[in-house]
């Protein structure tokens, strides 16, 4: 597609969801109601670790206004020792996370649920459920979970042939690291820690589920994938997928945290047992205590360089908390951490550690910020040790087309180098700094993803266009798809409506995650639209009675390809649509593909901080995020993704952390003491969109949503070092920690 002639691709068109959202019309999951609806509430574990000996629901059942009660006995049984894999999840864990079975594994773990006439009655009934627990010792932190005499969460999990809380490992190797370190002139090895942080989506989990007497189920819920909701609910309830219609609501933020279910299967069981539609809405406290944050971590990174700046070897060891069930994002930490660099000899390994905390869920580039934090901080120290500009140092070691990445692939054309070059020449990098101000840089990578997507493009009777895709729009996919469709058809973008279909109206589409949606849906929409154009040409051929190949589609019109084709007045989309019935019927096309070719994304960030050295407060005062975005289909949305990722990274670096008390309870389950940044905490986050088109995509799209949270942790740590001359090896770099460090001398 010719860049210069683009009319809609690359334009900041009006958001299709904007008017509905700002006028309060958009329907979120908690806005849905039905006649006869009742309310579900969850009884949660008061202990971080305990055996469930018995559950007696008699008293609760007899409370006036109670309709039904659910426990794990109502769920399909998934034997604990045989995996049932769905995407990156395992239904053994998912079912036990939704309703505890043999044991409760964290404070807040759901044990039972009640549907009642009102939320208050449901709550009261929950308090009447008698659970007999055998309280067990617990482990919260990684060190407590991996020490010799640690309480074991899952007996059958073995590591080195012994029962263990280490549930799995993942390794990448390249070359010979012993040899590599021998060649190095300077070697630096450091240990790092990060705290568990929550995605912080503003909309809490919510759903309404209605099961009719014929077992037909409708689910309205807020998720990152209506097909994921359907599949997981089907697995856990035993109702076939064909009987479940999952309708995606508008979503008030997900960031990965809504890629699994918490409420839907429970509401389904309650609805089936009561015969009433059941609505459930989590409180913020429930979200904080029982929905997934991302892992806390401990890591050790060792890197060797020659005096000329060439990296000779790198080693990374990453322990990530999984929470109560296996599945921490060790792949993101061990796989992404060295991806921006040409490293001849490397070994990275991740350990998946279970402990008595809520099960982690995906969070924006899961695991990658943890890996990059350690590597990018060590690189900063190395650059200083060999007296090299940290960006020149990265430039010297930058991976490029043809580089064999430590995590496996040989890179095609990609733009890491370009991000470093753009950062080097950016005016920000040369601005003078005042006392107690500092500048740091860091780079980052995220895999991005393809996967299954479906699209249907239909021409309306009046000659406009409706596009249906199958993934919730959490980052601008509707606006971007409208741009692409309008571009291909050569019509005004205002004539294209893009909708998110439910599981009954569009084919299986994988969830919104992995920065995959625009990459994948643009592919199927492009295929579908091109087919529609073909049909339109056929119809024009019929009307004119000439050969289809003698027709061009240009500017939204069918035209004779040349003088030989004959002399006809061009036929517009509307004119062809008007004649659709006599020429063969409705016009539309759909495609369904398992998309491949989603190439990774790279970013380089520059961050300035200022530290109040008497109070220990570090504030980010200037920030520039440079990223290879492939092709920005809707630049304002892309910029928003970069800014959002940086904002979350700033929170992670400076203030956010899950704090546990000595009873194994989360001590800050709300936004007062779990401090995500507010607007006034952030500077204007500048962005530079580097466009190195993905050669494997029709519009050159690369995923953009996750990469921007990868560099900030290290960029900020490096900036604080530059301001204070002191390095910090644990996050968050909160005021008491910073002040304590400053007082050390």
């Amino acid at each position, binding site marked *: 597609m010719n860049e210069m002639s683009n009319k809609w691709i690359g334009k900041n068109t009006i958001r299709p969801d904007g008017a509905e959202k700002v006028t309060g019309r958009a329907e979120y999951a908690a806005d849905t109601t039905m006649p006869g609806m009742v309310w579900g509430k969850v009884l949660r574990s008061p202990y971080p670790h305990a055996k469930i000996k018995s559950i007696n629901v008699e008293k609760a059942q007899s409370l006036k206004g109670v309709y039904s009660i659910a426990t794990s006995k109502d769920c399909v049984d998934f034997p604990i020792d045989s995996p049932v894999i769905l995407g990156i999840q395992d239904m053994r864990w998912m079912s036990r996370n939704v309703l505890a079975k043999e044991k409760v594994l964290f404070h807040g773990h759901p044990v039972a649920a009640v549907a009642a006439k009102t939320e208050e009655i449901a709550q009261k009934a929950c308090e009447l459920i008698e659970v007999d627990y055998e309280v067990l010792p617990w482990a919260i932190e990684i060190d407590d979970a991996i020490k010799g005499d640690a309480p074991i969460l899952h007996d059958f999990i073995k590591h080195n042939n012994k029962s263990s809380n280490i549930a799995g490992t993942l390794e990448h190797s390249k070359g010979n690291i012993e040899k590599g370190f021998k060649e190095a002139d300077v070697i630096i090895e450091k240990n790092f820690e990060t705290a568990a942080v929550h995605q912080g989506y503003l909309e809490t989990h919510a759903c309404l589920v209605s099961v009719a007497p014929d077992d037909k189920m409708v689910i309205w819920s807020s998720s990152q994938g209506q097909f994921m909701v359907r599949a997981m609910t089907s697995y856990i309830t035993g109702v076939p997928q064909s009987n479940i219609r999952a309708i995606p609501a508008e979503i008030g933020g997900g960031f990965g945290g809504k890629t699994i279910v918490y409420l839907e299967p429970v509401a389904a069981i309650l609805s089936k047992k009561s015969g009433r539609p059941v609505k459930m809405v989590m409180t913020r406290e429930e979200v904080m205590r029982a929905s997934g944050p991302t892992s806390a971590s401990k890591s050790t990174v060792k890197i060797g360089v020659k005096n000329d700046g060439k990296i000779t070897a790198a080693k990374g060891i990453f322990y990530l908390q999984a929470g109560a069930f296996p599945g921490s994002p060790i792949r993101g930490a061990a796989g992404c951490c060295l991806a921006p660099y040409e490293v001849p000899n490397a070994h990275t390994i991740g350990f998946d550690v279970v402990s008595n905390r809520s099960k982690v869920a995906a969070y924006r580039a899961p695991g990658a910020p943890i890996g990059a934090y350690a590597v990018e901080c060590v690189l900063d120290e190395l650059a200083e040790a060999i007296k090299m500009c940290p960006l020149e140092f990265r430039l010297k070691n930058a991976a490029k087309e043809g580089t064999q990445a430590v995590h496996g692939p040989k890179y095609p054309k990609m733009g890491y180098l370009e991000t470093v070059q753009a950062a080097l020449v950016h005016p920000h990098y040369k601005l003078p700094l005042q006392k107690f101000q500092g500048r740091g840089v860091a780079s980052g990578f995220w895999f991005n993803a393809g996967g299954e997507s479906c699209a249907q493009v239909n021409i309306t009777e009046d000659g406009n266009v409706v596009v249906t895709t199958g993934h919730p729009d959490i980052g601008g996919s509707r606006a971007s798809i409208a741009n692409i469709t309008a571009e291909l058809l050569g019509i005004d973008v205002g004539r294209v409506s893009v909708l998110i279909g439910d599981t009954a109206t569009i084919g299986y589409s994988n969830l919104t995650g992995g920065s995959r949606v625009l990459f994948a849906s643009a592919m199927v929409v492009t295929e579908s639209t091109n087919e529609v154009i073909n049909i339109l040409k056929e119809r024009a051929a019929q009307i004119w009675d000439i050969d289809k190949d003698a027709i061009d589609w240009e500017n939204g019109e069918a035209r004779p390809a040349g003088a030989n084709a004959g002399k006809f007045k061009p036929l517009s989309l509307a004119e062809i649509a008007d004649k659709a019935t006599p020429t063969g019927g409705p016009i539309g096309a759909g495609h369904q593909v398992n998309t491949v070719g989603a190439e990774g994304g790279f970013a380089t960030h520059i961050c300035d901080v200022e530290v109040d050295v008497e109070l220990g407060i570090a504030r980010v005062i200037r920030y520039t995020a440079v990223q290879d975005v492939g092709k920005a289909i809707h630049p304002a949305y892309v910029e928003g993704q970069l800014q959002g990722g940086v904002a979350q990274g700033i929170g992670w670096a*400076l203030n956010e952390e899950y704090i546990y008390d000595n009873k194994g309870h989360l001590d800050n389950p709300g936004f007062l003491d779990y401090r995500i940044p507010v607007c006034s905490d952030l500077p204007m986050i500048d962005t530079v969109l580097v466009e190195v088109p993905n050669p494997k995509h029709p519009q050159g799209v690369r995923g953009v949503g996750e990469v921007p949270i990868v560099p900030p942790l290290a960029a900020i740590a490096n900036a604080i070092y530059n301001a204070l001359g002191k390095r910090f090896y644990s996050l968050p770099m909160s005021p008491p920690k910073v002040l304590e460090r400053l007082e050390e001398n």
Partner: protein
Amino acid sequence: MIQGTFLTPNTIDEAVKFFSSSEGSVKLLAGGTDLLVQIRNGFTKPDKIIDIKNIRELQEIIDNGNGSFTVGAAVSGASLAEHNKFGKNWPGVLEALRLIGSEQIQGRASLGGNLCNASPAGDSVPALIASGALAKVHGPNGIRSIPVEKINLGPGKTNLQKGEIVTQFDFPDREPSSSDSYLRMIPRTEMDIAVVGCAVNISMDGDKCIDARIALGAVAPTALLVDQAAKIIIGSKLEDDVLNEAAKACQNACKPIDDKRGTITYRKKVSGVLFKRAIQIAKERALKV
């Protein structure tokens, strides 16, 4: 949600009568910005709520002249900020009240509610204490005036007797060249709770400090009036060594705890820092009056 009685008296007498004759769990509601959150979180389940914000005296701002004001206990931060003179005379009190919550919360949050909620971290309380304001308390046995620092006993506990309501605050006359200030430490820039708060109210004669009241918040079970620090600076020209000594007195007065919001060491250190910063602001303001 609560089920119970919601009363909206229009006079102080009526409110006192309701309050003193109520059985069970009764809560007064001024702005409700703490109470509603506590109800929602299940920390309290009152059978009865008495909404006192419709009472005239609790919504009045009276200019008594000479910088003295009488401010109703339920006057919101937004209303007090709109008054054309109060903030000029008591900028520290106003800035402390204005730090509570967001713009929306400011439409409700009040001095009386902030004080009687008895949180050690209430922002306006140290500023009220430093100002020397008296709380006017109406009860079944009549009216009494209590220095603000005597109202709170500990987290969630006040000195008020059954049926007693804080109705107004009486701010004293303003001496020439006097002013106040309030600073707090929060990890964020807004929408947060004080890890340490410090209020200073001083009177100057030329470059000499002739009177001072200093109060700290969030460093003990109640906000503290730190007489020791005031004694050190009164009579001085606020020289660096005097301020350092007074800052130490502030640190020594702290009886903080280690919790999720800060450590003992951190809070002590910060109380001295905030004191020194707050006094510079108060001094500059005083010398401009």
